[in-house]
């Protein structure tokens, strides 16, 4: 049974966590994530979940406690944003290298400084090389759906990696959205009971985790993590197909919107993809061949799917809601451009950094991007490959 509800992104994620009913949640509040754990803690105090809720003194401790619980054999979660994720940074690497299937929502918010509480992806991009699977969500529906799928992805024996579920701070987290939620029983059956292969509280089968690893083994263990990331691509698609069967909603590695015959494409993560799709609909009515590619998965980077979806286009604009200060544009730009390089199709790929610190991405901004792409195709030249969208210049 499915039911339509009007709730915020944070409420949707807390709802998903309630239905998953994890063994342990350890979290520390931070805007805009606060509601997720606040609402979830009320489920705990009302006895609606069996979760052991650990109130910790910082995000470093939140991830540490989650790691401890997960290593002990529990299905464990945390949640954070921005500075919280930055404080967690050290432990995120421990979680991934210990191969612990921790699921944690990241409600995307700009990193200080200057201090800011609004949306951008600089927090998520800080852990893009930490060995964590990163799912991105366009709206509250996707945040809810991805949370439930994340559990299955993380715990798959071929994967065993942490999964972060990213959705835009305030835009998705605090805005009221209409979405379809599954009934408790369906979610319970979908996520199943967590049965770890090895865990610290298994007294019959002792195991020592987090051992000192020298130059003669460390490299091999990193290679194992790469293999798990590679395997995750297939698992994410499999879990997506299974989820479609119970929800009717399709989930793959990427969301290709009107790309089949497109000449121009915008690649963009999270909520801004919704705005871009709106602009595409308008421009399509005017006869322009435009489309949007929204990576649902950013780590592992689905470069094969992106190559396949973009092989026919003439010009691509990658929209990044984060800076790298490399002076070569945003983080996703580098990855997309690298993925397209080997196609040798002479696709012009340009970058737009947008929306930092919660700056709105207006529909006119997206229109301007398609205008620029049309111009690049016409002239065959892309002189400036890093641009700033919505910035006062």
């Amino acid at each position, binding site marked *: 049974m499915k039911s339509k509800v009007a709730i915020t992104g944070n409420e949707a994620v807390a709802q998903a966590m309630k239905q998953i009913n994890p063994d342990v949640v350890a979290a520390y509040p931070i805007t805009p994530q606060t509601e997720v754990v606040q609402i979830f803690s009320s489920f705990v105090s009302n006895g609606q979940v069996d979760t052991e809720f650990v109130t910790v003194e910082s995000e470093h401790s939140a991830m540490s406690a989650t790691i401890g619980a997960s290593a002990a054999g529990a299905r464990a979660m945390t949640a954070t944003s921005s500075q919280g994720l930055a404080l967690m940074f050290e432990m995120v690497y421990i979680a991934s*290298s*210990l*191969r612990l299937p921790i699921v944690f929502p990241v409600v995307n918010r700009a990193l200080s400084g200057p201090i800011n509480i609004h949306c951008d992806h600089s927090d998520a991009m800080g852990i893009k090389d930490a060995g964590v699977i990163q799912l991105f969500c366009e709206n509250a529906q996707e945040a809810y759906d991805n949370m439930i799928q994340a559990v299955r992805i993380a715990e798959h024996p071929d994967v*065993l990696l942490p999964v972060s579920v990213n959705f835009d701070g305030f835009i998705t987290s605090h805005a009221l959205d209409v979405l379809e939620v599954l009934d408790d029983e369906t979610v319970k059956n979908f996520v199943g009971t967590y049965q770890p292969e*090895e865990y610290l509280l298994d*007294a*019959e*089968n*002792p*195991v*020592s*985790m987090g*051992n000192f*690893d020298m130059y*003669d*083994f460390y*490299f*091999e*263990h990193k*290679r*194992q993590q790469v*293999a798990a990331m590679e395997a995750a691509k297939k698992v994410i698609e499999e879990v997506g197909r299974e989820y479609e069967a119970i929800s009717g909603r399709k989930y793959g590695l990427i969301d290709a919107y009107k790309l089949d015959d497109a000449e121009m494409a915008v690649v963009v993560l999270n909520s801004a993809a919704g705005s871009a799709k709106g602009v595409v609909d308008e421009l399509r009515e005017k006869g322009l061949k435009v489309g949007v590619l929204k990576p649902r998965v950013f780590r592992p980077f689905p470069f094969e799917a992106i190559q396949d979806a973009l092989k026919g286009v003439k010009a691509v604009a990658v929209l990044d809601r984060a800076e790298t200060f490399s002076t070569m544009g945003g983080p996703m730009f580098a990855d997309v451009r690298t993925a397209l390089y080997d196609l040798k199709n002479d696709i012009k790929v340009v970058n737009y950094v947008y929306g930092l610190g919660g700056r709105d991405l207006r529909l006119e901004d997206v229109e301007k991007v398609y205008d620029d792409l049309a111009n690049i195709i016409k002239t065959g030249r892309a002189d400036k490959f890093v641009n700033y969208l919505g910035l006062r210049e």
Partner: protein
Amino acid sequence: MTPFNRNFGQGRRTKAVRPDMNWKELTKAGNIYEPGNANTYETGDWRTIRPVWNKDRCIHCLICWRYCPDASIISTGGKFDSFDYKHCKGCGICANVCPVHAIDMFSEDEIDKQKEAERNEE
């Protein structure tokens, strides 16, 4: 008192870890399933200087045995027997505490060079 670990099983995963294993053969995340396995990790190759026993000077007081931080002095019947070169890291404490200077430290490089010279002569 009952030992703390009385309920611990032997474990069904007893995979040994060796440095010649490739990444597919090694245990996940470097997990270890056997207790006391530090013995199988041969730290002797960290050594740059090697203790060598002078049999004539040794009075078998075993002060070296007591001081060795890696338990790499092997004694039999209350007498000095040998060094465990698979685990001795060459710290030189044994040579330092020996009251009769019966342990000399030699550079591993020099020993290697000497061995090579001997091989060349043959």
